[in-house]
């Protein structure tokens, strides 16, 4: 039966951002790589806001701009919007560093980007196996991973090293015992969005963009999620807008909220509705974001296997930055697999060099630095509601005349905050926010 034993030098599970990066590095290093994807094609299962950072792409494909990446628009304006009950305060930057060449980030759609990203791995020689779900590992008696079992007939694929890039639902990572249970609902945000089509000129006019070589990426705080922990986002594509929000899963469960109701409430907001008026729904969807950060990470390597990307909770919860971490981690796992091949040693001893590589770069440093932030939002929901409302009220008063002396107005402004959240408490919040971000 085993006459046609399928054998590769390395197997990658998942042709997402992390997986194709790992496959690219290993194929360039001369390995025979199987890149296994359960979707019809790469990207069909994948989801984000979103903006993708060029530093990570350029790290692997320095001439990426010449390879016609399917970007929508560069991010030329970025920042925060604070939604009040009926108002909106914008705090965005444009120009300066955002005008760098190439830009720091591009807005894109995953169903377009991921196939292109996988093609870069295929161009290097990786062998893409789509429509195939990995269901288990092949292991030796001592636990050493020596391949994977897929749901294809005679679906065994052998390889001395397996890189798991399966995304947020890290079933295989759990199966290997690298982590012993699912993340808590309080460590995950469910994010849902609509892609809404609008003529390019309409988008430019409504969002104040000169042309389609300019794009906007904002996080939206405030009256987005009923005062509960959550954050909205808006990204301008070429001829559509990606708009949605994320809410912690425990919040959705405990308050028994329907994501689509919460989304519609946000889209109906008087400051948001005019931006998307007349647009056609192209696609609705939803995906989890692992927000547990550093504390929620599994063991990253074992005998014959490594984990990268969302599967290892490598997401910066403050910025929802996961694409760059996934790509860089995939690359480092790939480099470790190359080292293992050159030494002919696939034990945990060599695999754990992956963790060393991660510690040297920004990923583990960032994740450690922000480790307090997801807990911070849990314990300080007012950051999502009271403060954005305050900003709107305060700026509204500042820029209107009212015929009152300014001193009184300022008192009124502070009053509007202190009524909702005592001033000392507010100062305390700012300190803890700073601490959670700085990782003190």
């Amino acid at each position: 039966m085993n006459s046609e034993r399928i054998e590769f030098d390395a197997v990658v599970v998942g042709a997402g951002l992390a997986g194709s990066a790992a496959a690219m590095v290993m194929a360039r290093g001369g390995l025979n790589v199987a890149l296994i994807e359960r979707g019809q094609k790469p990207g069909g299962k994948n989801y984000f806001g979103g903006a993708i950072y060029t530093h990570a792409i350029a790290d692997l494909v320095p001439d990426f701009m010449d390879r016609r990446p399917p970007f929508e628009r560069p991010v030329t304006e970025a920042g925060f919007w604070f939604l009040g009950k009926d108002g909106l305060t914008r705090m965005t930057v444009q120009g300066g560093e955002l005008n760098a060449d190439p830009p720091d980030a591009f807005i894109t759609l995953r169903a377009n980007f991921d196939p292109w990203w996988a093609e870069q791995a295929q161009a290097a020689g990786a062998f893409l196996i789509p429509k195939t779900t990995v269901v288990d590992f092949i292991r030796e008696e001592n636990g050493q991973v020596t391949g994977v079992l897929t749901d294809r007939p005679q679906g065994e694929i052998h390889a001395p090293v397996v890189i798991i890039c399966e995304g947020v639902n890290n079933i295989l990572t759990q199966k290997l015992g690298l982590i012993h249970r699912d993340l808590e609902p309080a460590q995950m945000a469910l994010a849902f969005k609509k892609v809404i089509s609008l003529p390019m000129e309409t988008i430019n006019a409504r969002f104040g963009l000169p042309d389609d070589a300019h794009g906007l990426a904002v996080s939206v705080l405030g009256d987005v999620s009923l005062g509960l922990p959550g954050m909205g986002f808006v990204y301008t594509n070429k001829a559509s807008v990606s708009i949605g929000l994320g809410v912690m899963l425990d919040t959705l469960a405990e308050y028994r909220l329907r994501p689509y109701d919460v989304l519609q409430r946000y889209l109906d907001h008087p400051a948001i509705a005019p931006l998307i008026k007349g647009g056609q729904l192209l696609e609705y969807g939803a995906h989890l974001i692992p927000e547990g950060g550093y504390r929620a990470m599994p063991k990253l390597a074992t005998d014959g296997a490594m984990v990268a990307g969302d599967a290892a909770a490598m997401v910066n919860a403050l910025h929802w930055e996961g694409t760059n971490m996934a790509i860089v981690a995939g690359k480092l796992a790939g480099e470790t697999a190359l080292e293992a091949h050159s030494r002919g040693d696939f034990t945990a001893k060599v695999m754990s060099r992956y963790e060393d590589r991660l510690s040297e770069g920004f990923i583990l440093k960032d994740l450690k630095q922000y480790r307090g932030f997801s807990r911070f939002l849990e314990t300080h929901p007012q950051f999502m509601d009271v403060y954005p409302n305050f900003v709107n009220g305060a700026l509204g008063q500042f820029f209107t005349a009212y015929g009152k002396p300014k001193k009184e107005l300022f008192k009124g402004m502070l009053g509007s905050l202190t009524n909702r959240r005592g001033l000392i408490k507010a100062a305390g919040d700012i300190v803890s926010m700073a601490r959670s971000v700085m990782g003190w």
Partner: protein
Amino acid sequence: MAMKTGDAFEAKELPEEVKATLPNVYVDDLLMSLKYFIDEDKAHLRIIDQAVCARCEYKPCLYFCPVGVYTQGNDGRIQVAYQSCVECGSCRVGCPYKNIQWELPRGGFGVAYKFG
């Protein structure tokens, strides 16, 4: 402050005036925008024990699933329209009784985002 599980799961209530601002969306209007390759032969989601669902006081799965896969039939049983699942994983981690057997669809099946 982990979410309580099992019988200890507690629902929370929004203030009435906040709740009143929530619209009531018909989820099928959203599903029409999604593309699927439906596996007619195998359901990748399954309720492990309907008796547990019967005991589950708040049934949060009826709400948090972003595409309304879970509904309650006239007989009180939880029905699973696995065909519209977008494989987000929320019910896998969010069911307070871990009463859902959650697998990935077979290779090639399930949701196929056109934009993502």
